[in-house]
């Protein structure tokens, strides 16, 4: 087997050196009646060519985003990733390294994580950010628990237009950790009254902007009401590119900002691995989950970086830790920070403008299709249309016409009937004039 360097002779020599007769003597502690005598009922070893054949056949059955006019979003977005990003993250020293517990030989990882934390803090308008979470949804659930710890209250108010998967993730963790929540109903028209749901029992308010239907929210009045009630505002961003153009949640008064960072540097990959961003105010840093990198000096006085404030973490505090979390999204974090360094402020702003411009064009074109209505007054690169009939059917028929037209709201959120004729449509820099024309043509076809 090509991955295993020991030869049969090596093995015999080594067993002799150890002083046992055979390999099974080393497994003697396994109860004899439980030990397997035969190999598992699975295929035997395969060459590279054979593995490529098997997996290539499966991959070929799927329709890649890059192969068709593509308008699917809702928390994962098809963006262009510069070639240098994927080259750099595959460097052995990044790919095959571990959590930087030995900082003297992990300065590469620690250095880029320090830069990542700074970039995330700047982008979200917050004071500090951690070294990342699993993804946006789990970051949101952790933010809610953090707010409970800070406010010493137990009820979260969840905006109705929070991504349904995020809502369910928060609900699952809240239920299981014996906290309560008030989940508001979806308002695809964007006219949600979050303020009315806040009271003195509220520990935090979770609001997504742009929300899952694409509407932008001014967080300032929500922050004001939340703070007056002794609650925190948790802002959720699932399309991080939006912050190139839209006011940051930090500027609008958020106390914790969580986001999905996939859009910058990371492939769609059927939903993971992605990278959760987590930022907050300096005063809450000791209640934060996840890893943090801090600056220090070495024995010669040279600047260097280490993991810090780890007394919050499970390997030190065990059952008293702020979270059970033990990894971050290392390599996805690296992809994010490389892509964002390439973009810089000028590039990010332009990328955001292109996304917005493409969405505006598409919304105007689709709104002219007979029977189609665009629900949004405001949006960034994603908006919601109402179509005559069942939106799940329409999306399937569009796919048959060779256009990935978006996400049927009722397929995403298994709830209210009023979602059944809605499609959430995303546009990014990858879409061309021809793609948009193809969408209009296909939708017209499907609806007639």
């Amino acid at each position, binding site marked *: 087997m090509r991955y295993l360097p020991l030869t049969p002779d090596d093995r015999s020599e080594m067993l002799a050196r150890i002083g046992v007769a055979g390999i099974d*003597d080393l497994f003697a502690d396994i109860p004899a009646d439980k030990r397997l005598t035969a190999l598992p009922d699975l295929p035997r070893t395969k060459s590279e060519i054979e593995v490529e054949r098997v997996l290539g056949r499966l991959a070929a059955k799927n329709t890649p985003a890059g192969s068709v006019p593509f308008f699917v979003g809702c928390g994962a977005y098809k963006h262009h990733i510069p070639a240098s990003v994927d080259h750099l993250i595959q460097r052995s020293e990044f790919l095959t390294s571990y959590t930087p517990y030995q900082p003297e030989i992990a300065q590469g990882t620690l250095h880029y994580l320090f830069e990542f934390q700074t970039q995330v803090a700047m982008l979200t308008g917050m004071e*500090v950010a951690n070294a990342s979470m699993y993804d946006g949804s789990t970051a949101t659930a952790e933010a809610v628990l953090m707010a409970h710890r800070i406010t010493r209250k137990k009820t979260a108010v969840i905006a109705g237009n929070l991504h349904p998967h995020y809502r369910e993730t928060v609900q699952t963790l809240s239920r299981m950790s014996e906290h309560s929540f008030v989940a508001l109903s979806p308002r695809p028209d964007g006219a949600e009254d979050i303020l009315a749901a806040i009271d003195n029992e509220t520990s935090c308010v979770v609001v997504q902007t742009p929300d899952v239907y694409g509407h932008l929210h001014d967080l300032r009045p929500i922050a004001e009401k939340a703070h007056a009630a002794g609650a925190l505002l948790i802002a959720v961003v699932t399309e991080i590119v939006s912050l190139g*153009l839209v006011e940051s949640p930090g500027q609008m008064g958020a106390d914790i900002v969580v986001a999905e960072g996939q859009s910058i540097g990371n492939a769609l990959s059927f939903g993971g691995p992605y990278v959760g961003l987590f930022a907050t105010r300096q005063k809450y840093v000791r209640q934060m989950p996840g890893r943090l990198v801090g600056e220090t000096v070495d024995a010669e006085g040279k600047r260097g970086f280490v993991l810090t404030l780890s007394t919050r973490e499970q390997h030190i505090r065990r059952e008293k830790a702020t979270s059970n979390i*033990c990894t971050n999204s290392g390599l996805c974090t690296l992809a994010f920070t*490389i892509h964002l360094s390439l973009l810089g402020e000028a590039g990010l702003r332009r990328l955001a403008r292109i996304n917005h411009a493409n969405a505006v064009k598409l919304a105007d074109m689709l709104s002219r299709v007979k029977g189609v209505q665009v629900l949004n007054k405001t949006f960034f690169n994603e908006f919601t249309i109402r179509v005559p009939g069942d939106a799940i059917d329409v999306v399937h028929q569009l796919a048959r016409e060779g256009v*990935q037209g978006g996400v049927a709201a009722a397929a995403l959120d298994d709830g209210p009937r009023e979602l059944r004729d809605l499609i959430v449509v995303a546009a990014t820099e990858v879409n061309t004039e021809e793609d948009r024309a193809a969408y209009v043509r296909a939708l017209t076809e499907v609806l007639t």
Partner: protein
Amino acid sequence: MNRQGRPTAPIEAVSTTPRTFTGNRALRIEEALLFEIGRPEVTGVDLDEPAAFTPRLGNLERTAPIGLPGLSEPETLRHYVRLSRMNYGIDTGVFPLGSCTMKHNPRLNEKMARLPGFGDIHPLQPASTVPGALELIAELSRWLCELTGMPAVALTPKAGAHGELCGMMAIKAALAARGEKRSVVLVPDSAHGTNPATAALLGYRVESIAVRPDGTVDPAEVKKHLSSDVAAIMLTNPNTCGLFERDVSAIAEAVHAAGAYFYADGANFNAIVGKVRPGDLGVDAMHINLHKTFSTPHGGGGPGAGPVVLSAALAPFAPLPYVIADAGGVRLVAHAGDAGKAKPLGRMCAFHGQMGMFVRAMSYMLAHGSDGMRQASEDAVLNANYVRAGLKDLMSLPFGDGPCMHEVLFDDAWLDGTGVSTLDFAKAMIDEGYHPMTVYFPLVVHGAMLIEPTESESKASLDLFVAALRDLALAAKRGETDRFSGAPYYAPRRRLDETRAARSPVLRWVKPSPRSEAAE
């Protein structure tokens, strides 16, 4: 001297190393922070400005600058390549980090994960356009169930600790379905910190079980703690001392007799693949770190993937979404309403879990096959015992001289009186070109050194590794403390001041104020 007059042989050895103007040392090049070299107006991505249009942002357009620096493409490459060279990876050398399983990462797996049919598909595309993705998930499930002897697997957890959370949630849900609410979870004191942290996160009180003098858990001790208030035991097997819990069946029986569940921490499953199945040992739930046993890359601390195999008792509570494969083919269950008689505990995260890791793990499994995976476990155990045999006369084994599994645990008793600590010893290993072993874990052993060579090391590599550690051990015993107390001497950084970092945390770059710049 050649014909150009260029010297072609060194003239004489220089005894002291001169300082350099840049602070660089040839291939070891210092690198500034992005914020010190980048500029907001520079970009390494060429994009065309869109034609004029009317924005639909309401009044929410960003007005103030963000402050993000940009780099051109060549500057970007140089920045990150230089940073990469300050890192130690598996491809650099021996990485014997116990409990972390730093085995070879086959590049075929990277190639497979990047096939457009896997890497460039959206989690919310209509299922009819991603049948191959669903088949891959079903196939991975089949392999994991077969290898563990368990009937079901929840694939969505994003890391080992997330898998623990999922498994323990399933236990809590199963108890609730029985109309019971129990408040205690038993955790041996040798466990990973994630175990008690997970239990506490779900509101359980953690009761610690002391390990017996041989490093394993005594069923009699477990029985003393069992009651109708105990929800589960969380037991790592093989355990963090590198030993197989030989009384695991008795522990499982006692736990089940008390109406509790057996959660197994599968962090060390890599030692026993093809040798024994957790399902045959009475396990109710066990997470599998795909980044350990099935070699998806650690990537500097993530992303991981932590699927959880579940017993028949817990399977109905598996989280959404999941894939079902039956005679009718493969289909996705995304909502509770489609789950039939099952009672999903909810959702662990958005979308389908770490698909990129599923592909890599599948590629690893297909390449190894059943025979290769068993061989990998055997070689991992063989290598660890070979290191044990090579070092046991100089270093101290806390639990006696018996075989270990895939990792060998030493304590620091052998360093008594040398003035050298476990940390010093680890740092001196860095100067020898090795990544240190896991140190000070597990907590049940003083000054622990946990060495996991993995199956990826050749005999020659281990021979040199053992010789180097023997040389260091003898130096420590001879009192050559300088080699240790100042180590590492040759790493990109000398020892770093962690106390200072924690006392006044600097967690981000801030633009120096003009005054402080003038003061420099």
